[in-house]
């Protein structure tokens, strides 16, 4: 009797808790637990037939059907380097212009977005080996790689060449963009870099530190940022290109760009 009253008073609390959650998964699991406790209440109210049927149908089958219905059907793996403004970590979350584009695309496909950070020269390798589906992180359209599929440019950019004003007749070591961008930024702040070629986002990120010992020269030509897609994923490429086109037409791409690069 006391157990029954305790369980009966637990029911509205559990229902209110389950239906007020933001995550759908928590709500479904909460309602499954509610059905189980309701089945126990039916048993204590001397209705065993009803208890067995309620437990079998509501707690097991209905909960499973809901979980199948909201489940994401797979993962969309993105490899990238961490570039401030485009794709960067902000505490626990990842944000940036590219992250917004990619998460919208993943939501459209019904997939879960997984971002892995790799040094920028390993991104095409990962795509070739099939470890990832999309490569991101401020990749210039002039990257020479025949196997990966490239999307159209979504953001025009410029290339800058920095060189330290040392004795001009000495040969300058051109440090290519290898390794993580954060390592490059540390080297820069320590003053070890001699010369390098940077795109706009990296340049903006580095320009917070002292740039006076460097001469900045802008390279000619039109460049733009693109995404890379793993080879032989034609359908994904086609879907992504049409998604980017729709973003541009709707004007949402401009809004996002202004938000991150105003």
């Amino acid at each position, binding site marked *: *009797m006391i157990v*029954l*009253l305790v369980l*009966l*008073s637990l*029911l*509205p609390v559990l*229902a*209110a808790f*389950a*239906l*007020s959650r933001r995550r*759908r998964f928590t*709500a*479904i699991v909460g*309602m499954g637990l*509610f*059905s189980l406790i*309701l089945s126990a*209440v*039916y048993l204590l*109210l*001397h*209705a*065993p*037939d*009803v208890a067995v*049927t*309620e437990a079998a*149908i*509501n707690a097991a*089958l*209905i909960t499973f*059907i*809901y979980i199948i*219905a*909201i489940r994401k059907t797979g993962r969309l793996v993105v490899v990238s380097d961490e570039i401030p403004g485009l794709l960067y970590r902000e505490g626990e979350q990842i944000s940036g212009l590219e992250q917004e584009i990619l998460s919208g695309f993943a*939501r*459209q496909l*019904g997939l879960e977005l997984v971002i892995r950070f790799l040094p920028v020269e390993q991104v095409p390798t990962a795509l070739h080996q099939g470890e990832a589906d999309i490569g991101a992180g401020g990749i210039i359209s002039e990257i020479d790689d025949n196997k990966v599929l490239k999307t159209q440019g979504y953001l025009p950019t410029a290339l800058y060449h920095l060189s330290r004003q040392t004795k001009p007749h000495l040969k300058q070591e051109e440090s290519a963009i290898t390794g993580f961008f954060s390592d490059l930024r540390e080297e820069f702040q320590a003053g070890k870099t001699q010369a390098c070629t940077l795109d706009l986002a990296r340049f903006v990120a580095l320009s917070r530190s002292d740039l006076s010992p460097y001469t900045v020269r802008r390279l000619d030509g039109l460049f733009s940022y693109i995404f890379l897609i793993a080879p032989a994923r034609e359908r994904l490429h086609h879907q992504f290109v049409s998604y980017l086109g729709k973003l541009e037409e709707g004007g949402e791409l401009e809004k996002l760009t202004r938000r991150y690069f105003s």
Partner: protein
Amino acid sequence: MLMIAGVIVAVILFGIGLLGMIFRRDLIIKLLSLGLVNGSVMLCLVSLGSRANGIAPIIRGPENANYVNPLPQALVLSAIVINFAILALALVFVMLLVEHYHSTDSQRIEHEIKREREL
């Protein structure tokens, strides 16, 4: 005593389910609230038929034991299966709707439908 407690809890659950259906914009949570409303009605029926110091209506030995009223339980059994049928079919429709409009938000889906109708 049990009957009164059961009916009061059932009515409170009905209220919670109703509020959940009105105020949550997510389609899946609206369906869950519908199932909750169903469950509350079934709880009310079963607890109306219960009796203090009763036993389950399965005849074992002596004839004149204090059996609980079996009729509401038979009605609730049918109601559970019908509830499952309704929820399964409603979930199919919700899945197709979500796949078409890429969102589970009911207001956003209505907005998109209105926009499609204007075009």
